[in-house]
Every structure is written in structure tokens, then in C-alpha cells.
């Protein structure tokens, strides 16, 4: 395999892996902060127990997120040096701000939170976890500012063969950021919420710590429902923005080779034949694509063939159609999982209201499996976003094939790809194992540490957290 293919595989796999932990961290820490707020406001020990128990899972997850994130920051320069040279002036800034504003905050206050249960007053301790939560969300914002530049570059001009920033405000107020950021944050909140509902469902089925997990389930369920609707709403905004700014991606996501009729029908399923640029089989729902694109039940959507012709005029000869099948199906998987999450959330609320939650073992079993839904949806969404942008790495300005490091060999990338994959595989196995262990053990043993010792690391450092 050549160096470009290998570099792409490495970037894709390390990023997808990293993005298992990121949304989970963002979601979990927000929920933990909510639980600790309830503890501080209501003064009930149970909420503290909750924050601590879910905190265990969060911390295991956070550690893996941090270490896989360092790799993310370094590999732009390592594997994509031409890209880094071209965009560094614009793209580097949000990354640096992310580190300064978010990473320092997260890492410092997480340390204070872990080891500070006895050292700090309740309110200061609560502030620490909220600062971690805010830090994770700020971090998401800045990295998405960077990503948005790749999707919809603004606030720059090309000088001496590279993009130079000329309007920072335009960069952070870009329309792309403000559809992508809330969508990602809602998705992340849902990821944390569905983990908690799923784990709680498992414990409820086993009839362990029922009161504790029912409460956890209900808190997470509220967040799950709100973020479920948030995802749908912001996703819709994003698709409208997409039609305007990256019509090729939208057309590929729809498997739309020719211009659609007016009103445009939405293709639910299609058998895509990329070689002959046609679909041999389609299931269509009338009006829906018009609605997705324009929030109206009329208006036609451009197809890939006519966009290709336009782009050839604009950018010169070339193939501007992304991998259609991947874009098409990842979009459907994302939408399908998102819809399912909303339905499961609403049904859970219905059961909970009727006080039938514990009896509905079928629903609880489904909720265990539903832990995977936000992960699948989030991954599919990013695959659609990134694959659908191809052949561009910075839309309209630089193609992925020109972005790679010219001085790094295929052999070196193969080595790094294999070693990163191997270590990530080990991390995944260990993490899954530790998660199951923590969950099986349950929250019970948390309660024995009550005395404050003179040593800041004594009980809290060794007793509950580090044990």
C-alpha cells in the first residue's frame, strides 16, 4: 500500500478510536456534575455516591481519551506535513487555544476533583467538576472550529501558497461551527446518558442497588431525551447548511446522481452502482429531501453529475465525487440510530412515569444494547462528514492526496499504524474489562471513607478512588 492510503487508514482509525472516548467523557462528566450539584443542593449522600460511582467509569475513560488525544495533535505534523504547512496559520490557532483554554483546565481540575473530596469545601469541589465539564465542551468547540475550517473555509486568504488567517471572528462565527458544535455536544451528552441508562438497566435487571440505579437511570434519561431532540434539531440545521456549502456531500449522502425533481423525494434505501453512476434500486419517500434541505416541501436538489460538471469548471479536471456508498450508508446509519435513541428515550420516560420501569425487562435489555447507539451514530456521522468531503482535505483548496508528508515512507507509517493499532487494541480490552469490573462491583463500597485524615492523599487517594 502507498503512503497516502496508509496515512489515511492511520488517521481514520486513530481518530475513530479517540472519538469513542471523547463524547463519552463530555457526556459523563456533565452528568456527574449534575449529580454532584444535586448532592450539594439537596445534601443527600446518595447523589455523592452517584457522582463517585459514575466518576470511576469517567476517569478510566478520561485517561484513555487524554493519551489518544496527544497522538491526534501530533499526527498532523507527522503524517500530514504539507497540510500543516498549508493551513497552520489558520488551523493551528484553534488547536493552541484549545490547549491553553481547555486542556489545562480539564487536567488541573480533574486532579483536584479526584483527590480533593476531603481537601476542598463542597462548593469548591463542585466547582471543580463543573470546570472540567465546561473544559470538555470548550475543547469540543475549538477542535470543531478547526474542523469546520476544513469543511467550509472562511476568515483567510491564500498568500504564497498557504492559507493565512485574516479574520479570526469569521473563523469562530462560521456557520459550519455553529451547526457542527451543538450537534456534536448533544451527541456527546447522549453518549454519556445512554451509558448510564444502559448500565443502570443492567443493574436493575440484576436487582442490585435498585434505588440507586433507578435514580441514575432517571437523571440520565432526561439528559438522553433532551439531547436526542437536540441532535435531531441541530442535525437538520446542519443538513440545510450542507446543501448550501457542500452540495456534493449532500448529493452523495442521498445517492443522488441526477438533479432531483421538485419537490425532492428522500431515498430511504438504494442499491448504488458507483461505476455506472446510477442506482439500480431505490425506495423513495416523496417531499422529504426538500424538507431536509430547505425546511419546505418544495425545491429541487442538485445531483452529483451536475455538481461534478460545475466543479470541473471551477477547480479543473478531476473526480470530485466522494465514495458514494460510504457517504450514503453512514448518513442512514446516523439518522436511524438518532431516531431510535429518541424513541427509546421517550418510551423510557413513559415507563418511568407509570412506575413500570423495573418490570419491563425487555425494555431494560434493549437499553443495555442501546449503549452502543450513540457510538455508532457518532462514528457514522463523522465518517459521512469526512468521507463526504473527499477528495478535499480543505474544501476547495487542498486535496487529501497533496496533504501527506513527502518525507515519511510507507514502511514508517506501516510501523506506526501497526503499533498504534496494537496498543489501542490492548487499551480497548483493558478498558472494557475494567468497566465491567467497576460496574459489577457497584457503588456499595463507597461509603466507608468518612474520616478526614491529615493526609490529603490518605483516604480519598487510596480508599475509594485508587483502590
Amino acid at each position, binding site marked *: 500500500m502507498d503512503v497516502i492510503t496508509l496515512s489515511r487508514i492511520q488517521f481514520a482509525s486513530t481518530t475513530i478510536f479517540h472519538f469513542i472516548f471523547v463524547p463519552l467523557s463530555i457526556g459523563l462528566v456533565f452528568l456527574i456534575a449534575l449529580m454532584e450539584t444535586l448532592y450539594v443542593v439537596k445534601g443527600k449522600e446518595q447523589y455523592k455516591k452517584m457522582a463517585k460511582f459514575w466518576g470511576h467509569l469517567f476517569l478510566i475513560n478520561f485517561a484513555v481519551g487524554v493519551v489518544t488525544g496527544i497522538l491526534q495533535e501530533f499526527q498532523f505534523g507527522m503524517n500530514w506535513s504539507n497540510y500543516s504547512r498549508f493551513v497552520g496559520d489558520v488551523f493551528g490557532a484553534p488547536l493552541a487555544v484549545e490547549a491553553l483554554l481547555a486542556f*489545562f*483546565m480539564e487536567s488541573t481540575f480533574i486532579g483536584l476533583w479526584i483527590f480533593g473530596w476531603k481537601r476542598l469545601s463542597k462548593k469548591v469541589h463542585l466547582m471543580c467538576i463543573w470546570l472540567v465539564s465546561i473544559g470538555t465542551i470548550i475543547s469540543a468547540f475549538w477542535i470543531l472550529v478547526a474542523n469546520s475550517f476544513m469543511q467550509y473555509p472562511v476568515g483567510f486568504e491564500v*498568500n504564497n501558497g498557504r492559507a493565512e488567517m485574516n479574520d479570526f471572528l469569521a473563523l469562530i462565527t462560521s456557520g459550519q461551527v455553529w451547526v457542527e458544535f451543538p450537534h456534536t455536544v448533544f451527541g456527546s451528552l447522549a453518549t454519556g446518558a445512554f451509558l448510564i441508562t444502559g448500565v443502570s438497566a443492567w443493574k436493575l435487571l440484576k436487582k442490585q442497588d435498585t434505588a440507586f440505579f433507578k435514580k441514575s437511570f432517571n437523571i440520565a434519561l432526561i439528559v438522553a431525551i433532551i439531547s436526542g431532540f437536540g441532535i435531531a434539531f441541530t442535525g437538520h440545521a446542519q443538513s440545510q447548511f450542507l446543501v448550501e456549502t457542500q452540495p456534493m456531500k449532500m448529493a452523495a449522502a442521498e445517492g443522488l446522481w441526477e438533479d432531483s425533481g421538485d419537490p425532492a423525494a428522500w431515498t430511504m434505501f438504494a442499491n448504488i452502482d458507483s461505476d455506472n453512476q446510477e442506482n439500480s434500486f431505490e425506495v423513495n419517500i416523496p417531499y422529504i429531501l426538500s424538507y431536509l434541505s430547505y425546511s419546505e416541501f418544495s425545491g429541487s436538489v442538485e445531483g452529483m453529475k451536475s455538481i461534478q460538471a460545475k466543479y470541473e469548471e471551477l477547480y479543473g479536471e478531476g473526480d470530485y465525487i466522494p465514495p458514494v456508498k460510504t457517504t450514503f450508508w453512514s448518513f442512514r446509519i446516523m439518522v436511524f440510530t438518532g431516531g431510535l435513541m429518541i424513541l427509546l428515550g421517550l418510551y423510557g420516560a413513559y415507563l418511568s412515569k407509570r412506575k413500570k420501569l423495573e418490570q419491563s425487562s425487555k425494555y431494560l435489555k434493549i437499553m443495555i444494547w442501546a449503549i452502543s447507539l450513540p457510538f455508532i451514530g457518532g462514528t457514522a456521522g463523522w465518517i459521512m462528514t469526512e468521507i463526504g468531503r473527499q477528495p478535499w482535505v480543505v474544501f476547495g483548496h487542498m486535496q487529501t492526496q497533496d496533504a501527506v508528508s513527502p518525507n515519511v515512507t510507507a514502511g514508517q507509517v506501516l510501523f506506526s499504524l501497526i503499533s498504534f493499532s496494537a496498543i489501542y487494541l490492548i487499551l480497548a480490552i483493558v478498558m472494557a474489562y475494567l468497566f465491567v*469490573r467497576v460496574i459489577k462491583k457497584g457503588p456499595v463500597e463507597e461509603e466507608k471513607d468518612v474520616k478526614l485524615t491529615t493526609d490529603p492523599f490518605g483516604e480519598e487517594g487510596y480508599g475509594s478512588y485508587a483502590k
Partner: protein
Amino acid sequence: MVLMLNEVWFILIAVLFVGFLFLEGFDFGVGMAMRFVAKTPGERRVLINTIGPVWDGNEVWLITAGGAMFAAFPHWYATLFSGLYMPLVIMLLLLIGRGVAFEFRSKLEHPKWRDTWDWTIFISSLLNPFLWGVVFAALMAGLPIDSEMNIYASLFDYITPYTLIGAIAITLLCFLHGLFFITLKTTGDLQHRARETAKKVVYAVGIALVAFVVASYFYTDIFEVRGAVLIPIFALIVVAVIFARSFALKSRDGWAFTMTGLTIALTVTSVFVGLFPRVMVSSINHAFDLTIHNAASGPYSLKVMTIVAVTLIPFVLGYQIWSYYVFRKRVKEEEHLEY
């Protein structure tokens, strides 16, 4: 007033690397002490807990330095990171292992499990400063940068006698710094042993640093370029190491730690002073050197970044110092039996 922003960012990145090696330097040193000083699993747990709340924050200094290089000097970032691909892959693997080791080791009580992660922490803490020593020495000695700013380096372009001397010097320095940190954060036998080890290691550090300086005279041009500034700095480094020794002998641990911190700061500073105004030296042709001008982002970007950095850094420093203040007490083994 005309702000020389390229210079400002060069200094800022130097400061970030100073911060990184000062802070992560002692937690690397503590990691090394896991095998060289600690004798029992209990002592290893104490050592981990001396850095438990802060190592992650310390590492962010490196991440921020990387981000700042990317933003302010994209060519520096691109040339260095792609040019030293293999050492960076190794470094990342080590950092990944180390980071999760802190979190994973305590999750199971099995001795083999803990041993595995303790070894991971030890090896990573040993090799990380070693690799940074290689990188810093290679930066000064020069790398084969071509006219397109790309490095086509083989292993022996950056593994040379000179870079190995630099690597050993930085590693020993971090070890000593970590030992003094342990004397500050522990009590009893462990503290005593750390201090005794430090009294020996301080000589090795002195010798290695002097060797590094002498080798720099032969392998780099930093004396020709910045001799007038560097010679006083080197003199200060020697003085600091001598003071570190005498403070160690008198068991004035805080001052000894300050001295090794100063030594680290001065050593990293001298690397950047020796480079200035270059950021990377080409061993092929000095016309291909990367400088704070030809490697930099545009003035607009630098200005925006400066405003952001100047606004945020006081807060960052403030809460990091507060976190050290909160965890200022010593860690004792008697106060916990489970680890």
C-alpha cells in the same frame, strides 16, 4: 510600540518547553525512582501519589507547546514532526502507556498487573526525557533539511554521540529533579533514601552537563552564534548544580529542588538561545535553516494568538499553582494500608 511577535512566540514556546521539562521533568524523575529508589509496592504507590494529582496537568505543557508551534510556526511543526517521525512514534507510544498506567494500575489487586503498569511507568519515564534530550541536541546540531524544508533523516542523523550525550544529561537531570521532589513530598525511610541517592546522582548530573556543553562546542555552532550569552548561562548551570549538591548535603530539600529546577530551566533556555533566531538548523546548507521568520505564521495570526495567550496564561498559572497549594502536604505510607 512595535511588538516583535515572531520573537514573542519563539520565547513563549521556549517557556512552554521550560515549563514542560521543569514540571514533567520531576514526574519523569519520580517514575524513574519507582525502580531505583522504591523497594516495595507500598513505596511505589506513595511515589505515584506524589505526582498523581499533577502529572496530567504537567503533560499539558507539552501539548500546548505542540499546539503553539503549529499555530505560530507551522513549518517548524511540520518539519520537525515529520522529520523525526520514528522517535515521535516511540515517544507517543510511551506517553500513551504511561498515561493509562497511572489510571489502570490501581484497578486490580493482582501483583503481576501492578508490576506490569509500574514497569510501564518506569520505562516510559526513563525513555521520554532521553528522547527529548535527543531531540534538543539534534535541533542544535542540525538535521538534513532540504530546500523544501523537508527532512529525509536516517536513524544516524539524529542518533549521534552528541545527541546521546544530550539524552543522558537530560535524563539524569530529570532523575535528580524527581529525587528532590520525592524528598519534598514523602517522609521517613523513603525520603531518606531519595536524598542519599540524590547526593550521588548530583555528581553524574554535573559531569553529564559539562560533557554536553563541551560536546556542543564541537558538534554545534551555538558558541559562534550566541557565545556571549551562552557562556554566562553555562556558568550559572554549573553554579546551580553545585548549589544543588550542597543543599542536598544539608537536607535543605526545597532549595535543592529549586536548584535542579533552575538547572532544567537554564538548560532548555540555552538550547533556544543557541538556536535563535533559527528554529531548526539545516546540516545540508544554512540557507535552508528554518527561522522565526520563514517558518512563522502571518502577522495577523500571531497578533490574535498573542492576545489570546496573554489573556489566558495568568489564569492557567493561577489555578495550577493553586492545585499545587491544595496538595502541598507530604504523602505518608502509614496513613493507608491499601494501595
